[in-house]
Protein backbone atom coordinates (compact mmCIF):
# COMPACT_ATOMS: atom_id res chain seq x y z
CA UNK A 1 0.00 0.00 0.00
CA UNK A 2 1.38 3.35 -0.97
CA UNK A 3 2.45 5.67 1.79
CA UNK A 4 -0.39 7.74 3.21
CA UNK A 5 1.35 11.07 2.79
CA UNK A 6 2.04 10.28 -0.89
CA UNK A 7 -1.66 9.54 -1.46
CA UNK A 8 -2.63 12.83 0.11
CA UNK A 9 0.03 14.81 -1.73
CA UNK A 10 -1.03 13.40 -5.09
CA UNK A 11 -4.67 14.06 -4.28
CA UNK A 12 -3.89 17.68 -3.44
CA UNK A 13 -1.89 18.06 -6.65
CA UNK A 14 -4.84 16.73 -8.68
CA UNK A 15 -7.30 19.09 -7.03
CA UNK A 16 -4.98 22.07 -7.48
CA UNK A 17 -4.44 21.24 -11.15
CA UNK A 18 -8.16 20.93 -11.81
CA UNK A 19 -8.77 24.17 -9.93
CA UNK A 20 -6.10 26.30 -11.55
CA UNK A 21 -5.47 25.00 -15.06
CA UNK A 22 -7.66 24.70 -18.10
CA UNK A 23 -7.74 20.98 -18.63
CA UNK A 24 -9.34 19.08 -21.51
CA UNK A 25 -12.51 17.33 -20.58
CA UNK A 26 -11.02 13.88 -21.11
CA UNK A 27 -7.97 14.82 -19.07
CA UNK A 28 -10.22 16.29 -16.38
CA UNK A 29 -12.20 13.07 -16.25
CA UNK A 30 -9.05 11.01 -15.95
CA UNK A 31 -7.75 13.20 -13.12
CA UNK A 32 -11.09 13.06 -11.39
CA UNK A 33 -11.18 9.30 -11.53
CA UNK A 34 -7.64 9.05 -10.18
CA UNK A 35 -8.53 11.51 -7.43
CA UNK A 36 -11.54 9.48 -6.38
CA UNK A 37 -9.42 6.34 -6.25
CA UNK A 38 -6.70 8.02 -4.16
CA UNK A 39 -9.33 9.35 -1.80
CA UNK A 40 -10.80 5.87 -1.40
CA UNK A 41 -7.39 4.34 -0.57
CA UNK A 42 -6.52 7.15 1.86
CA UNK A 43 -9.78 6.70 3.72
CA UNK A 44 -9.28 2.95 3.85
CA UNK A 45 -5.89 3.50 5.44
CA UNK A 46 -7.41 5.90 7.95
CA UNK A 47 -10.05 3.36 8.82
CA UNK A 48 -7.45 0.91 10.10
CA UNK A 49 -8.56 0.38 13.67
CA UNK A 50 -5.72 -1.51 15.35
CA UNK A 51 -2.28 -0.12 16.01
CA UNK A 52 0.38 -2.58 14.89
CA UNK A 53 3.04 -3.04 17.52
CA UNK A 54 6.34 -4.79 16.94
CA UNK A 55 9.16 -5.35 19.35
CA UNK A 56 12.77 -5.32 18.23
CA UNK A 57 14.71 -7.75 20.35
CA UNK A 58 18.29 -7.39 21.52
CA UNK A 59 19.35 -10.53 19.70
CA UNK A 60 18.47 -9.02 16.36
CA UNK A 61 21.26 -6.55 16.86
CA UNK A 62 24.44 -7.37 14.97
CA UNK A 63 27.18 -6.02 17.20
Amino acid at each position, binding site marked *: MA*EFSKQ*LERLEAIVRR*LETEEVDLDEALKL*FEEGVERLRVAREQLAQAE*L*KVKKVLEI*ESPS
Partner: protein
Amino acid sequence: MGQSLDLFAAASAEGAWTVGEVTRRARAVIEAGLPPLWVRGEITGFKAWRSGHWYFSLRDKSAQLRCVMFAKQNYMQPTPVDGMQVFVFARPSVYEEKGDFQLTVMELLSTDQGGLWKLAFEKAKAALTKDGLLDPARKRRLPPFPRRIAVVTSPDGAALRDIQAVVGRRWPVAELIIVPAQVQGAKAEASVCSALNRIGRLSVDIVVVARGGGSVEDLWAFNSERVARAVAAMPMPVISAIGHETDVTLCDLVADVRAPTPSAAAEAATPDRAEVMAQCVVLGQRLARALRIASRHVVERLDRTGDRLYRRMDHRLEQSRALLTAHSARLDALSPLRVLGRGYAVARDADGKVLKRVAQLPTGKEFHLRVSDGEVHGRVQ
Protein backbone atom coordinates in the same frame (compact mmCIF):
# COMPACT_ATOMS: atom_id res chain seq x y z
CA MET B 1 68.89 0.97 83.05
CA GLY B 2 67.29 -0.93 85.84
CA GLN B 3 64.21 1.16 85.31
CA SER B 4 63.98 0.06 81.68
CA LEU B 5 64.28 -3.51 82.64
CA ASP B 6 61.48 -3.06 85.13
CA LEU B 7 59.28 -1.54 82.57
CA PHE B 8 60.00 -4.27 80.12
CA ALA B 9 59.29 -6.85 82.78
CA ALA B 10 56.00 -5.13 83.58
CA ALA B 11 54.86 -5.56 80.00
CA SER B 12 54.01 -9.20 80.14
CA ALA B 13 54.20 -10.89 76.77
CA GLU B 14 51.17 -12.93 77.63
CA GLY B 15 49.06 -9.78 77.98
CA ALA B 16 50.12 -8.25 74.63
CA TRP B 17 47.52 -7.80 71.87
CA THR B 18 48.22 -8.72 68.36
CA VAL B 19 47.97 -6.01 65.68
CA GLY B 20 44.98 -7.80 64.21
CA GLU B 21 43.22 -7.87 67.57
CA VAL B 22 43.65 -4.14 68.08
CA THR B 23 42.49 -3.19 64.61
CA ARG B 24 39.54 -5.58 64.83
CA ARG B 25 38.59 -4.16 68.22
CA ALA B 26 39.06 -0.58 67.02
CA ARG B 27 36.86 -1.31 64.03
CA ALA B 28 34.14 -2.79 66.22
CA VAL B 29 34.26 0.18 68.61
CA ILE B 30 34.13 2.72 65.79
CA GLU B 31 31.39 0.99 63.85
CA ALA B 32 29.30 0.64 67.00
CA GLY B 33 29.93 4.19 68.18
CA LEU B 34 29.73 6.06 64.86
CA PRO B 35 26.75 5.13 62.71
CA PRO B 36 26.67 6.26 59.05
CA LEU B 37 26.73 10.06 58.96
CA TRP B 38 27.03 13.08 56.72
CA VAL B 39 30.47 14.67 56.61
CA ARG B 40 31.44 17.91 54.97
CA GLY B 41 34.90 18.64 53.66
CA GLU B 42 37.20 19.39 50.78
CA ILE B 43 38.38 16.65 48.44
CA THR B 44 42.11 16.10 48.26
CA GLY B 45 44.33 13.41 46.74
CA PHE B 46 41.51 12.07 44.55
CA LYS B 47 42.37 8.91 42.64
CA ALA B 48 40.10 6.67 40.56
CA TRP B 49 41.40 3.13 40.30
CA ARG B 50 41.02 0.88 37.30
CA SER B 51 38.68 -1.25 39.37
CA GLY B 52 36.33 1.77 39.42
CA HIS B 53 36.85 2.42 43.13
CA TRP B 54 37.64 5.95 44.21
CA TYR B 55 40.16 6.86 46.91
CA PHE B 56 40.52 10.34 48.34
CA SER B 57 40.69 12.31 51.53
CA LEU B 58 38.38 14.87 53.00
CA ARG B 59 39.96 17.71 54.85
CA ASP B 60 39.19 20.89 56.63
CA LYS B 61 41.51 23.39 58.35
CA SER B 62 42.48 21.06 61.15
CA ALA B 63 42.17 17.44 60.01
CA GLN B 64 41.95 14.87 57.25
CA LEU B 65 39.93 11.71 56.78
CA ARG B 66 40.68 8.92 54.35
CA CYS B 67 37.73 7.89 52.17
CA VAL B 68 36.87 5.12 49.77
CA MET B 69 33.88 5.07 47.43
CA PHE B 70 33.39 1.74 45.74
CA ALA B 71 32.49 1.35 42.07
CA LYS B 72 29.05 0.02 42.85
CA GLN B 73 28.28 3.27 44.68
CA ASN B 74 29.91 5.73 42.31
CA TYR B 75 29.02 4.40 38.85
CA MET B 76 26.39 7.08 38.24
CA GLN B 77 28.41 9.87 39.79
CA PRO B 78 30.23 12.48 37.82
CA THR B 79 33.87 12.41 38.88
CA PRO B 80 34.86 14.97 41.53
CA VAL B 81 38.11 16.87 41.48
CA ASP B 82 40.54 17.98 44.17
CA GLY B 83 39.58 21.15 45.96
CA MET B 84 35.87 20.56 45.60
CA GLN B 85 33.66 21.10 48.63
CA VAL B 86 31.47 18.06 49.14
CA PHE B 87 29.05 16.35 51.47
CA VAL B 88 29.46 12.63 51.84
CA PHE B 89 27.19 10.14 53.51
CA ALA B 90 29.57 7.54 54.87
CA ARG B 91 30.15 4.74 57.29
CA PRO B 92 33.22 5.30 59.52
CA SER B 93 35.33 2.21 59.89
CA VAL B 94 38.84 0.85 60.14
CA TYR B 95 40.54 -0.74 57.16
CA GLU B 96 42.27 -3.47 59.08
CA GLU B 97 44.92 -4.43 56.55
CA LYS B 98 46.41 -0.94 56.68
CA GLY B 99 45.20 0.08 60.08
CA ASP B 100 43.63 3.13 58.49
CA PHE B 101 40.68 4.90 59.97
CA GLN B 102 38.50 5.65 56.96
CA LEU B 103 35.05 6.49 55.64
CA THR B 104 33.25 4.18 53.28
CA VAL B 105 31.29 6.68 51.20
CA MET B 106 27.81 5.79 50.02
CA GLU B 107 26.76 9.14 48.63
CA LEU B 108 28.67 12.18 47.50
CA LEU B 109 27.20 15.60 46.78
CA SER B 110 29.02 18.69 45.75
CA THR B 111 28.18 22.05 47.23
CA ASP B 112 29.85 23.86 44.31
CA GLN B 113 27.68 25.32 41.54
CA GLY B 114 24.65 23.22 42.34
CA GLY B 115 26.58 20.03 42.59
CA LEU B 116 28.70 17.64 40.62
CA TRP B 117 25.82 16.89 38.28
CA LYS B 118 25.64 20.45 37.20
CA LEU B 119 29.38 20.53 36.65
CA ALA B 120 29.44 17.41 34.48
CA PHE B 121 26.32 18.57 32.64
CA GLU B 122 27.87 21.92 31.78
CA LYS B 123 31.07 20.25 30.66
CA ALA B 124 29.27 17.88 28.28
CA LYS B 125 26.99 20.67 27.10
CA ALA B 126 30.00 22.82 26.25
CA ALA B 127 31.51 19.96 24.23
CA LEU B 128 28.24 19.45 22.33
CA THR B 129 27.88 23.18 21.71
CA LYS B 130 31.41 23.32 20.37
CA ASP B 131 30.52 20.65 17.81
CA GLY B 132 27.37 22.55 16.82
CA LEU B 133 25.03 19.80 18.02
CA LEU B 134 22.85 22.22 19.99
CA ASP B 135 22.38 24.57 17.05
CA PRO B 136 18.62 25.25 16.64
CA ALA B 137 19.14 25.15 12.85
CA ARG B 138 19.83 21.42 13.18
CA LYS B 139 16.30 20.71 14.37
CA ARG B 140 14.35 18.75 11.79
CA ARG B 141 10.63 18.95 11.15
CA LEU B 142 8.55 15.93 11.99
CA PRO B 143 6.88 14.12 9.08
CA PRO B 144 3.12 14.88 9.15
CA PHE B 145 1.93 11.30 8.57
CA PRO B 146 4.49 8.88 10.03
CA ARG B 147 4.32 5.25 8.94
CA ARG B 148 6.68 3.78 11.49
CA ILE B 149 7.43 5.19 14.94
CA ALA B 150 10.21 3.66 17.01
CA VAL B 151 10.13 3.97 20.79
CA VAL B 152 13.24 3.57 22.93
CA THR B 153 12.15 2.97 26.49
CA SER B 154 11.80 0.40 29.22
CA PRO B 155 9.59 -2.43 27.91
CA ASP B 156 7.53 -2.55 31.08
CA GLY B 157 7.39 1.10 32.11
CA ALA B 158 4.41 3.43 32.26
CA ALA B 159 6.02 5.54 29.52
CA LEU B 160 5.51 2.79 26.93
CA ARG B 161 1.92 2.19 27.99
CA ASP B 162 1.14 5.90 27.67
CA ILE B 163 2.75 6.18 24.24
CA GLN B 164 1.00 3.08 22.95
CA ALA B 165 -2.37 4.38 24.14
CA VAL B 166 -1.95 7.82 22.55
CA VAL B 167 -0.64 6.56 19.21
CA GLY B 168 -3.36 3.90 19.12
CA ARG B 169 -6.02 6.54 19.65
CA ARG B 170 -4.67 9.26 17.37
CA TRP B 171 -2.87 7.48 14.55
CA PRO B 172 -3.29 3.68 14.40
CA VAL B 173 -2.33 3.97 10.73
CA ALA B 174 1.27 3.86 11.92
CA GLU B 175 3.28 0.91 13.09
CA LEU B 176 4.86 1.18 16.54
CA ILE B 177 8.28 -0.38 16.89
CA ILE B 178 9.37 -0.92 20.45
CA VAL B 179 13.10 -1.01 21.02
CA PRO B 180 13.57 -2.01 24.65
CA ALA B 181 16.34 -0.32 26.60
CA GLN B 182 17.39 0.01 30.19
CA VAL B 183 16.62 3.58 31.15
CA GLN B 184 18.27 3.63 34.55
CA GLY B 185 21.15 2.02 36.34
CA ALA B 186 24.72 1.32 35.39
CA LYS B 187 23.93 -0.11 31.97
CA ALA B 188 21.44 2.55 30.84
CA GLU B 189 23.94 4.59 28.85
CA ALA B 190 25.21 1.65 26.80
CA SER B 191 21.72 0.19 26.46
CA VAL B 192 20.15 3.40 25.10
CA CYS B 193 23.05 3.90 22.69
CA SER B 194 22.74 0.36 21.40
CA ALA B 195 18.96 0.77 20.94
CA LEU B 196 19.46 3.97 18.94
CA ASN B 197 22.11 2.22 16.90
CA ARG B 198 19.71 -0.56 15.96
CA ILE B 199 17.04 1.93 14.88
CA GLY B 200 19.52 3.73 12.64
CA ARG B 201 19.39 0.68 10.41
CA LEU B 202 15.60 0.39 10.32
CA SER B 203 13.28 2.30 8.07
CA VAL B 204 11.60 4.47 10.66
CA ASP B 205 10.09 7.98 10.32
CA ILE B 206 10.33 9.19 13.92
CA VAL B 207 12.12 8.02 17.06
CA VAL B 208 10.74 8.67 20.53
CA VAL B 209 13.16 8.33 23.45
CA ALA B 210 11.16 8.25 26.65
CA ARG B 211 11.17 7.52 30.33
CA GLY B 212 9.04 8.64 33.24
CA GLY B 213 10.24 11.10 35.82
CA GLY B 214 12.97 10.32 38.28
CA SER B 215 15.68 11.84 40.38
CA VAL B 216 18.68 13.53 38.81
CA GLU B 217 20.61 10.31 39.37
CA ASP B 218 17.90 8.26 37.65
CA LEU B 219 18.02 10.47 34.58
CA TRP B 220 21.76 10.47 34.44
CA ALA B 221 22.15 8.27 31.36
CA PHE B 222 20.25 10.91 29.38
CA ASN B 223 22.74 13.53 30.46
CA SER B 224 25.68 11.54 29.18
CA GLU B 225 27.53 13.00 26.26
CA ARG B 226 27.58 9.59 24.59
CA VAL B 227 23.78 9.30 24.54
CA ALA B 228 23.45 12.91 23.38
CA ARG B 229 25.81 12.25 20.48
CA ALA B 230 23.95 9.06 19.56
CA VAL B 231 20.68 11.04 19.44
CA ALA B 232 22.27 13.75 17.31
CA ALA B 233 23.56 11.13 14.87
CA MET B 234 20.12 9.63 14.16
CA PRO B 235 19.16 9.91 10.47
CA MET B 236 15.51 10.62 11.33
CA PRO B 237 13.92 13.17 13.71
CA VAL B 238 14.02 12.32 17.42
CA ILE B 239 11.52 13.35 20.08
CA SER B 240 12.86 13.29 23.61
CA ALA B 241 10.60 12.87 26.63
CA ILE B 242 12.85 12.36 29.63
CA GLY B 243 11.97 13.09 33.18
CA HIS B 244 9.70 15.99 33.80
CA GLU B 245 9.23 19.61 32.96
CA THR B 246 11.80 20.98 35.36
CA ASP B 247 14.74 18.77 34.41
CA VAL B 248 16.08 19.37 30.94
CA THR B 249 18.54 16.66 29.97
CA LEU B 250 21.24 16.80 27.30
CA CYS B 251 19.19 14.27 25.36
CA ASP B 252 16.29 16.78 25.38
CA LEU B 253 18.57 19.55 24.15
CA VAL B 254 19.97 17.54 21.26
CA ALA B 255 16.65 16.04 20.14
CA ASP B 256 14.63 17.65 17.35
CA VAL B 257 11.61 18.03 19.60
CA ARG B 258 11.40 17.99 23.38
CA ALA B 259 8.19 16.80 25.02
CA PRO B 260 7.41 17.21 28.73
CA THR B 261 5.92 13.69 29.06
CA PRO B 262 5.85 10.43 27.08
CA SER B 263 2.18 11.08 26.21
CA ALA B 264 3.05 14.53 24.89
CA ALA B 265 5.82 12.96 22.80
CA ALA B 266 3.31 10.56 21.26
CA GLU B 267 0.97 13.47 20.48
CA ALA B 268 3.79 15.41 18.85
CA ALA B 269 4.68 12.38 16.73
CA THR B 270 1.20 11.79 15.32
CA PRO B 271 -1.58 13.64 13.52
CA ASP B 272 -5.12 13.23 14.79
CA ARG B 273 -6.94 10.71 12.63
CA ALA B 274 -10.29 12.53 12.96
CA GLU B 275 -8.72 15.75 11.68
CA VAL B 276 -7.10 13.99 8.74
CA MET B 277 -10.41 12.34 7.94
CA ALA B 278 -12.04 15.80 7.85
CA GLN B 279 -9.24 17.00 5.60
CA CYS B 280 -10.02 14.13 3.21
CA VAL B 281 -13.68 15.09 3.11
CA VAL B 282 -12.74 18.65 2.16
CA LEU B 283 -10.42 17.38 -0.55
CA GLY B 284 -13.21 15.23 -1.94
CA GLN B 285 -15.50 18.25 -2.11
CA ARG B 286 -12.84 20.33 -3.83
CA LEU B 287 -12.24 17.52 -6.30
CA ALA B 288 -15.93 17.45 -7.30
CA ARG B 289 -16.11 21.24 -7.58
CA ALA B 290 -12.90 21.34 -9.60
CA LEU B 291 -14.37 18.89 -12.08
CA ARG B 292 -17.43 21.10 -12.50
CA ILE B 293 -15.15 24.09 -13.12
CA ALA B 294 -13.10 22.13 -15.65
CA SER B 295 -16.24 21.20 -17.55
CA ARG B 296 -17.33 24.85 -17.51
CA HIS B 297 -14.10 25.78 -19.27
CA VAL B 298 -15.04 23.46 -22.06
CA VAL B 299 -18.49 25.03 -22.26
CA GLU B 300 -16.98 28.50 -22.43
CA ARG B 301 -14.84 27.48 -25.36
CA LEU B 302 -17.91 26.20 -27.10
CA ASP B 303 -19.57 29.55 -26.42
CA ARG B 304 -16.73 31.52 -27.94
CA THR B 305 -16.82 29.36 -31.06
CA GLY B 306 -20.54 29.96 -31.23
CA ASP B 307 -19.99 33.73 -31.14
CA ARG B 308 -17.69 33.66 -34.12
CA LEU B 309 -20.07 31.51 -36.09
CA TYR B 310 -22.90 33.86 -35.29
CA ARG B 311 -21.11 36.88 -36.58
CA ARG B 312 -20.65 35.22 -39.95
CA MET B 313 -23.73 33.15 -40.43
CA ASP B 314 -27.36 33.88 -40.98
CA HIS B 315 -30.09 33.73 -38.47
CA ARG B 316 -30.50 30.03 -38.88
CA LEU B 317 -27.20 29.82 -37.17
CA GLU B 318 -28.45 32.23 -34.59
CA GLN B 319 -31.04 29.64 -33.70
CA SER B 320 -28.30 27.07 -33.50
CA ARG B 321 -26.36 29.34 -31.23
CA ALA B 322 -29.33 29.81 -28.98
CA LEU B 323 -29.61 26.07 -28.85
CA LEU B 324 -25.92 25.74 -28.16
CA THR B 325 -26.08 28.29 -25.38
CA ALA B 326 -29.00 26.49 -23.89
CA HIS B 327 -27.02 23.27 -23.99
CA SER B 328 -24.05 25.08 -22.57
CA ALA B 329 -26.07 26.34 -19.67
CA ARG B 330 -27.31 22.86 -18.98
CA LEU B 331 -23.85 21.41 -19.31
CA ASP B 332 -22.68 24.12 -17.00
CA ALA B 333 -25.09 23.00 -14.35
CA LEU B 334 -24.28 19.37 -14.62
CA SER B 335 -21.10 17.46 -14.27
CA PRO B 336 -20.11 15.20 -17.17
CA LEU B 337 -20.83 12.16 -15.09
CA ARG B 338 -24.40 13.28 -14.62
CA VAL B 339 -24.66 13.79 -18.36
CA LEU B 340 -23.79 10.15 -18.71
CA GLY B 341 -26.61 9.39 -16.32
CA ARG B 342 -28.99 10.96 -18.72
CA GLY B 343 -28.16 8.48 -21.42
CA TYR B 344 -25.14 10.00 -23.14
CA ALA B 345 -21.96 8.07 -23.51
CA VAL B 346 -18.30 8.94 -23.95
CA ALA B 347 -16.34 6.86 -26.43
CA ARG B 348 -12.62 6.48 -25.79
CA ASP B 349 -9.83 4.53 -27.41
CA ALA B 350 -7.48 2.15 -25.61
CA ASP B 351 -5.34 5.09 -24.45
CA GLY B 352 -8.32 6.81 -22.91
CA LYS B 353 -8.48 9.50 -25.61
CA VAL B 354 -12.01 10.72 -26.21
CA LEU B 355 -13.26 9.92 -29.73
CA LYS B 356 -15.20 12.90 -30.92
CA ARG B 357 -15.25 12.66 -34.70
CA VAL B 358 -16.23 10.10 -37.33
CA ALA B 359 -12.69 10.26 -38.65
CA GLN B 360 -11.51 8.91 -35.32
CA LEU B 361 -13.77 5.89 -35.66
CA PRO B 362 -12.80 3.95 -38.80
CA THR B 363 -14.34 0.55 -39.36
CA GLY B 364 -12.82 -2.07 -37.12
CA LYS B 365 -11.65 0.50 -34.54
CA GLU B 366 -12.00 -0.74 -31.01
CA PHE B 367 -13.33 1.61 -28.42
CA HIS B 368 -14.53 1.82 -24.82
CA LEU B 369 -17.88 3.31 -24.15
CA ARG B 370 -18.25 5.00 -20.75
CA VAL B 371 -21.89 4.93 -19.69
CA SER B 372 -23.39 5.99 -16.40
CA ASP B 373 -22.63 2.83 -14.45
CA GLY B 374 -19.51 1.51 -16.10
CA GLU B 375 -17.77 0.76 -19.35
CA VAL B 376 -18.38 -1.50 -22.35
CA HIS B 377 -16.05 -2.38 -25.20
CA GLY B 378 -17.05 -2.21 -28.84
CA ARG B 379 -15.80 -2.19 -32.41
CA VAL B 380 -16.96 -0.04 -35.30
CA GLN B 381 -18.67 -2.11 -38.05
